[in-house]
């Protein structure tokens, strides 16, 4: 491990790592460019470098993209990647309140902490963690997805029924295309392009960015900018202090992110959503979540960044990548004749450990660059809406198109965006719809696989037995019960407050 650290600290490694981080900053910030795309594009450039420096550069890009996707999420309510969806829930309201710098610096510090946490797990706990991860089969993934769905309780706004219906609409949209069972075309309505399914990124841009742009246009005559912004000195340290004031939130988010990160297929978006949900559930004062609570931003960012290094754990221990960028990094290693898996630990342990240290250093570099550029980035909100709205629209089109080079994705994005813009007027929150879009591709394949397994035994045996299943079911039930209980409590409190105010008014009149 020590040799790995020394290798990671050599100037050439640090240079390539920093370059990877800088490219990651651009990749994450631009909607439509994902960490996977960025790492894949960078692979050919790593051939000229030593293997360790090459994968350090790719790792740096991956880690930084997991932070920089929070920048558009906070500033213009458009997650740079699906992993930043939960960041937008509180990040954008913070920006609207003129706390943009706090949101960006908070996300940056949280990302750095999450990366350090995930990288520490990679370096120290890889083998014990993978033993637990191996217990996850299709039914466990199904219940994990259901557990993540309970976040709707925190996002639903005033009406939980609208939240549930919104989540179901998201799940339905995600089920368009070829089914996971007998490969039947579903909900294509005679449109051949729908057979390939809908693009998740185009869908998320449609759910978040397009309604935001249309809302900007609708408000153009009332306000000139997204929000007022006055740069404040010492904001970085103040924000770090605020983040550190919730140590339980930090540790919990790190644990959730690291654990979900090692589950192949789950990845950063689920980690961020589950972590956000837990931050809301365990907080004493829940009233500010969704309205600009820094703890919401940090919970999401710590978890999605902790998931990035953790996704490398199954890669180096089992040879199974935990995420798409991890799969690209696996490919980069294989192209150099290095087979990821247990034998890599034995044949080139220094490389494996130097990668872990590089990820850790990438977290620090991300924080330094992110805090330096934060005041500059926040100035985006000072761009007049008359210019910003069309610019975001073009970026949204680019983002939707770039993923699959398919013009149909652009039409789908616009159609979904108009739909969400209209239903927002009916009191639907875009969060549950986006949540359904993200969780559908995780829940449904797991459900179908588990159903196939249950053909050989029974539904009960597959879904309702096994320690992990029972824990996840219990957590889901508790989560739902908790939502019902807190909503009821809030309703009673609001009713009592209104009654007290009315009686006070009556007393005054008398």
């Amino acid at each position, binding site marked *: 491990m020590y040799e790995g650290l020394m290798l990671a600290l050599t100037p050439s490694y640090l240079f390539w790592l920093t370059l990877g981080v800088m490219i990651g900053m651009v990749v994450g910030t631009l909607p439509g460019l994902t960490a996977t795309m960025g790492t894949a594009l960078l692979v050919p450039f790593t051939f000229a470098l030593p293997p360790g420096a090459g994968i350090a550069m790719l790792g740096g890009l991956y880690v930084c993209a997991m932070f920089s996707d929070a920048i558009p999420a906070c500033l213009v309510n458009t997650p740079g990647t699906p992993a930043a969806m939960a960041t937008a829930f509180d990040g954008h309201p913070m920006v609207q309140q003129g706390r943009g710098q706090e949101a960006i610096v908070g996300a940056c510090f949280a990302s750095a902490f999450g990366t350090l946490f995930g990288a520490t797990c990679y370096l120290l706990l890889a083998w014990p963690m993978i033993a637990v991860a191996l217990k996850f089969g299709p039914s466990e993934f199904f219940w994990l997805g259901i557990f993540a769905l309970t976040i709707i309780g925190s996002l639903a706004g005033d009406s939980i029924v609208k939240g549930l219906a919104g989540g*179901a609409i998201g799940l339905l949209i995600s*089920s368009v295309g070829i*089914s996971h069972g007998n490969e*039947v075309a579903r*909900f294509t309505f005679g449109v051949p392009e729908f057979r390939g399914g809908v693009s998740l990124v185009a869908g998320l841009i449609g759910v978040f960015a397009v309604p935001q742009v249309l809302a900007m246009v609708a408000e153009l005559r009332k306000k000139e900018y997204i929000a007022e912004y006055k740069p404040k000195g010492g904001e970085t340290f103040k924000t770090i202090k605020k983040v550190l004031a919730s140590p339980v939130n930090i540790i919990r988010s790190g644990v959730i992110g690291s654990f979900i990160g090692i589950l192949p297929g789950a990845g950063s978006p689920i980690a961020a959503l589950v972590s956000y949900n837990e931050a809301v559930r365990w907080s004493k004062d829940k009233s500010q979540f969704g309205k600009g609570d820094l703890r919401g931003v940090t919970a999401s960012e710590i978890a999605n960044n902790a998931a990035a290094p953790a996704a490398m754990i199954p890669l180096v221990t089992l040879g199974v990548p935990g995420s798409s960028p991890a799969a690209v990094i696996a490919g980069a290693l294989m192209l150099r004749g290095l087979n990821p898996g247990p034998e890599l630990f034995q044949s080139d342990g220094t490389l494996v450990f130097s990668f872990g240290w590089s990820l850790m250093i990438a977290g620090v570099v991300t924080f330094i660059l992110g805090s330096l550029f934060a005041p500059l980035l926040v100035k985006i909100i000072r761009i007049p809406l008359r210019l910003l709205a069309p610019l975001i629209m073009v970026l949204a089109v680019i983002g939707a198109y770039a993923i699959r080079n398919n*013009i149909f994705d652009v039409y789908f994005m616009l159609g979904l965006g108009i739909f969400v813009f209209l239903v927002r007027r009916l009191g639907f929150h875009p969060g549950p719809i986006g949540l359904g879009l993200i969780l559908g591709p995780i829940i449904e394949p797991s*459900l179908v696989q588990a159903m196939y397994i249950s053909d050989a035994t029974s539904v009960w045996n597959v879904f309702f037995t096994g320690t992990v299943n029972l824990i996840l079911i219990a957590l889901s039930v508790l989560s739902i019960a908790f939502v019902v209980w807190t909503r009821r409590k809030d309703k009673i409190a609001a009713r009592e407050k209104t009654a007290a105010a009315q009686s006070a008014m009556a007393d005054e009149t008398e």
Partner: protein
Amino acid sequence: MIRNTDFLTAVVLFVIGAIFLSDGGEDIKDWAFPLLATYVVLVGAVFFAAKFLFATMRGRVADLIEFDADHKLAAKDVFIFLVVVLIYMSLMRTIGFWPTSVVMLLVLSIYLTLEKTRQNMTSAILAPIITCIIAYLIFTHVFYVPFPPGTIWPD
């Protein structure tokens, strides 16, 4: 804008439920998941329809949609914005992504600039051109994303 939205919500949810119920098959493995989600949507629709009916029976004013002059102006801006975006999307394949993007940005920036002072107009013209040049360089020459080149131009 919309004070009581229960009726409209119920209609929207019923329509979505009906659309997704219109497709189906025999093997439960292919359809269990979307069916469950559709039932959730339909239960929501029934809930809001019942809520609306109760409100109507109790004599409460339901679904009062109010449009004042400001709302009309906002709706007009959004409508024109969407029309321009739709024209842009339909011309993108023929004329090419980057030329249509520049034109769309210019048209919208100029339209949305309400106070057409010299300074505002300069920014409304320069910002789209500069943005498109930067985006073109990043996406085409750094990340090699192939955008529709347009069919009317010679190879």
